[in-house]
C-alpha cells in the first residue's frame, strides 16, 4: 500500500485523492463511516466508487491514495474488514457450507461447522447447504455469500453493488436480510440504485467528478419500506442529483 495511509479503529475516516500514474481518479474528498451504521455511496459509473472501496479493503496496487484511511479508535485496518461483491465469488467445487467456511480454510483455522450451519439457517438455506453453487439460484448464491461475510465476524463490511444482478423481488428480500443480519456493523454500500440508497442509507453520499455530496437520508431507521413517501421523495432527489452531475 501507499505511504500516508494510517490505520486506527471502528468508525472509519476516509480522506484524500486517488491517482494512477499522475492521472487523478477523483479529487480530494473526505467522509466518515459512522460506527455501526450504513453509509451508502451513489454515483455514475467510472467515477471511482469501487476504487474507494478497494482502497479501504487494501486491494489496490496500481491506484495510489494521497491521503489517509483511519480507524477512529486506532488499530490496523487489516483483519477488520469483510467484503461482498456483485459476483458471489463462491468456489464452484465447494458446497454451500464449505464456501461459508472458506475464511477458516484459507487461514488454516479449525472449521467451525456449528456456526456455519447456524448462519446458513439464518439466511434460510438449511435444505440447500450441501449443494454446490451451480445448483443454487442467483439469490440463493448471494445468501451463501452473505453467510460467508457474516462468518468472518468483522466490524467493517464493504458491499460492492451486491444486489444489483438480482431481480427486483429477490433484491428487496436480500436488502432486508442484509439489514437484519449486518446490524451493528460499520457498512459501506456502493450502489448505482437510488432506491437502494434511500431504503438502506443512514448516511447517503453522492460521488461525482467534482467531489462528494452529503444528501440527507429519509427520516426513520432502516430498513425503510420502499413505498414510504419520504423514501420515494429521497429516491427522486437522488436521481435528479445523479442526472445533474452527469
Amino acid at each position, binding site marked *: 500500500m501507499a505511504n500516508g495511509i494510517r490505520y486506527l479503529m471502528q468508525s472509519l475516516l476516509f480522506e484524500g485523492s486517488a491517482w494512477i500514474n499522475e492521472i487523478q481518479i477523483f479529487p480530494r474528498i473526505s467522509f466518515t463511516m459512522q460506527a455501526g451504521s450504513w453509509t451508502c455511496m451513489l454515483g455514475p459509473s467510472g467515477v471511482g466508487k469501487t476504487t474507494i472501496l478497494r482502497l479501504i479493503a*487494501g486491494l489496490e496496487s496500481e491506484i495510489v491514495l494521497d491521503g489517509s484511511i483511519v480507524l477512529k479508535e486506532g488499530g490496523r485496518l487489516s*483483519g477488520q474488514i469483510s467484503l461482498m461483491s456483485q*459476483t458471489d465469488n463462491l468456489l*464452484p*467445487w465447494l458446497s454451500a457450507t464449505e464456501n461459508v467456511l*472458506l475464511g477458516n480454510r*484459507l*487461514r*488454516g483455522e479449525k472449521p467451525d461447522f456449528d456456526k456455519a450451519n447456524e448462519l446458513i439457517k439464518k439466511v434460510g438455506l438449511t435444505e440447500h447447504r450441501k449443494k454446490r453453487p451451480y445448483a443454487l439460484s442467483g439469490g440463493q448464491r448471494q445468501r451463501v455469500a452473505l453467510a460467508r461475510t457474516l462468518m468472518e465476524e468483522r466490524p467493517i463490511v464493504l458491499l460492492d453493488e451486491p444486489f444489483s444482478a438480482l431481480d427486483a423481488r429477490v433484491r428487496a428480500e436480500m436488502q432486508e436480510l442484509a439489514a437484519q443480519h449486518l446490524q451493528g456493523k460499520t457498512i459501506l454500500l456502493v450502489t448505482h440504485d437510488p432506491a437502494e440508497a434511500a431504503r438502506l442509507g443512514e448516511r447517503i453520499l453522492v460521488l461525482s467528478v467534482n467531489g462528494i455530496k452529503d444528501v440527507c437520508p429519509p427520516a426513520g431507521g432502516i430498513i425503510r419500506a420502499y413505498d414510504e413517501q419520504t423514501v420515494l421523495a429521497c429516491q427522486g432527489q437522488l436521481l435528479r442529483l445523479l442526472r445533474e452531475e452527469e
Partner: protein
Amino acid sequence: MKLFLRLILVTVALFLFWHFLVVFADLPKFILPSPLLVMQTFVSNFSLILKHAVVTGSEILVGLLAGTVLGSVTAICLAISPAARTIVRPMMVLSQALPVFALAPLLTLWLGYGLWPKILMALLIIYFPVTSSFFDGLMNTPKGMLDLSRVMNGNPWRIMLNLRIPAAVPGLASGLRLAAVYAPIGAIIGEWVGASEGLGYLMLLANGRAKIDLMFAALIVLVVMTLILHWSIDRLGNSLTAKMSP
C-alpha cells in the same frame, strides 16, 4: 457410445480404402502390404509385438507421469514467485527453441541404450506444454475470488492449494491432453536413435529387412496405444474440469 461407433466406421472405411488401393494399384507387399496381410502378421507375431509394446508403453507412461509432476511443480513455483518467473521463464522459452529431437543422440550417448533416454525424451517433450498451460491456469484465477481471499487474510500457500490450483485444473487438463499425444513421439524418437527393444526399434528393424507388414502391425499398435492414452486422459480431464467449473 455414438463416438465409439463412428470411430469403428471410420476405421473400417479407412481399411477398405487401403485394401482396394493395394488390390487395384497392384502394389508389392514390400511397398504397401494389404491390411489383411498386416492382420495376419500381427496375429502370428503377437507375443513379439506385445513384448516391445510393453517396453514402449512403460516409457510413455513413466515419461508422462514424471513430466506431469515436474511440469506441475515448475508451474506452481513460477506462479508463487515473481523472481522465479523472471529467471526461469526466459530459460524455458530458450529451451523450446532447441529442437528436442536434436537432443536424442546426446541422451543416448549419456544414458545408454536402456529405458532412461526414452523416458527423458518423453518427459522433455511434454514438460513445456504441461508447465505453460498449468501456469496460465494458475495466473488466471478469477480476480474477485483472489480479492476475497486477500481480504480474508488467507495464507498464500493455502490460497494456492485451496483456490488457485483447483481453479487451474482445466488448464492443466488441456496441457495433459497435448502431453498424451506428444509423449509417444518422444519415446519413439528415443528408440529410433538407439535401442534394443520397443515398438520404435521393432519398426526400424522390420523396415530394414523389408518386412513392411510387421512395421505396419507395430505402427497400428502404437496408434491404438496413443488413442487409448489420449482417450483416458481426456475422460479424466473432462470429469475434473466439470467438477471445478460452475
